[in-house]
């Protein structure tokens, strides 16, 4: 018997909302939304955790500007290190940001291990940055975290819309709670999400040319129009504002 499965719910019991930032497609801004949402929440004095589950494509440490990788402190488990006020777990603290080639079964095991040993303690929000695809990570999160809610990201592209629509349909079939769909990197002229996801459409995040230069810098990130738009998505962050 794998003892870890039985302790996952207990480790998350003091957390208000557990939100997976997903979409099924890569490069749509999941890590951007996850990181900036966590920053914006912390900046609004919410207790927020960030769990980066994109092990091979880990990006939140780059966005948030984590440069020194070190092991978390231990006390009846591991205590998430704080970064910009966020309780933050990324596999890069264990791999020193080396390439991490894992098969599905390894990913399942690593997720279970992290969920079993991490002591998040009390949080208003735990934000989970998801990898692209509908894969072991997606299936495990649905199976292991019964209170999970999905926030879906999409972009104004025919390719993205088709892929994201399929993921959303699957989540709906599985009765997984969907907080809403955000259309990211919109230009003034092209939009698809409002029509493709009429029931769950939340709004748009503009393409922000200043973002590239803000990456790694907390203050600049909080000034991007991405962060400012996220502050207004009260459907996701219902305790905010």
């Amino acid at each position, binding site marked *: 018997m794998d*003892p870890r499965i039985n302790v996952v719910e207990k480790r998350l019991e003091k957390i208000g909302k557990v939100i997976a930032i997903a979409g099924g497609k890569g490069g749509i801004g999941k890590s951007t939304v996850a990181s900036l949402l966590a920053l914006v929440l912390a900046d609004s004095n919410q207790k927020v955790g960030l769990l980066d589950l994109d092990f091979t494509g880990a990006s939140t440490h780059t966005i948030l500007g984590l440069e020194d990788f070190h092991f978390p402190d231990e006390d009846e488990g591991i205590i998430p290190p704080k970064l910009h006020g966020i309780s933050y777990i990324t596999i890069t603290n264990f791999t020193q940001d080396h390439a991490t080639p*894992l098969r599905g079964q390894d990913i399942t095991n690593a997720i279970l291990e*992290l969920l079993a040993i991490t002591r998040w303690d009390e949080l208003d929000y735990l934000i989970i940055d998801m990898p692209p695809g509908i894969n072991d990570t997606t299936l495990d999160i649905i199976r292991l975290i019964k209170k999970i809610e999905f926030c879906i990201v999409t972009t104004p592209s025919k390719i993205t819309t088709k892929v994201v629509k399929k993921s959303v349909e699957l989540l709906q079939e599985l009765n997984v709670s969907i907080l809403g769909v955000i259309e990211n990197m919109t230009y003034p002229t092209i939009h698809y999400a409002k029509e493709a996801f009429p029931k769950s459409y939340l709004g748009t995040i503009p393409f922000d040319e200043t973002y590239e230069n803000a990456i790694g810098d907390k203050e600049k990130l909080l000034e991007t129009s991405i962060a400012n738009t996220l502050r207004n998505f009260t459907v996701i962050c219902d305790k905010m504002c």
Partner: protein
Amino acid sequence: MHEWALADAVITTAKKVAKEENLIKVTEIVVKIGELQTISREIFETALQQVLKDAPDLFNEVTCKLEIEPAGFKCMNCGHEWLFSDVKKNLDDDETESIHFIPETAHVFLKCPTCKSPDFEIVKGRGIWVDSIEGEK
């Protein structure tokens, strides 16, 4: 010491099994400790005793047997099989510590000795595993 969290998982599992099988007393828990995670028998024993302090009465007379399971790998690329004990001397302290927290980081720090691939299966001896739980009804 993060072993407490895993010991807690073991006792939580025993509680669940006791409930499902209507046990009034848990007498024995056999735990396998996978060599890969380099958890010391003494530390895990201590962690279990700590967790058991707060456990309900049905654990009053439980014995926890800990068995270390040697870790073994099989390469998906070339089929070669080898043991962790043959290669662990090549790991530095940080690498061993990473694997201690998340055994899958072995794929970052170890390679198949024959073909150098990181694409191997952890066949046995990964981490903490509950082998059996015995009790009285």
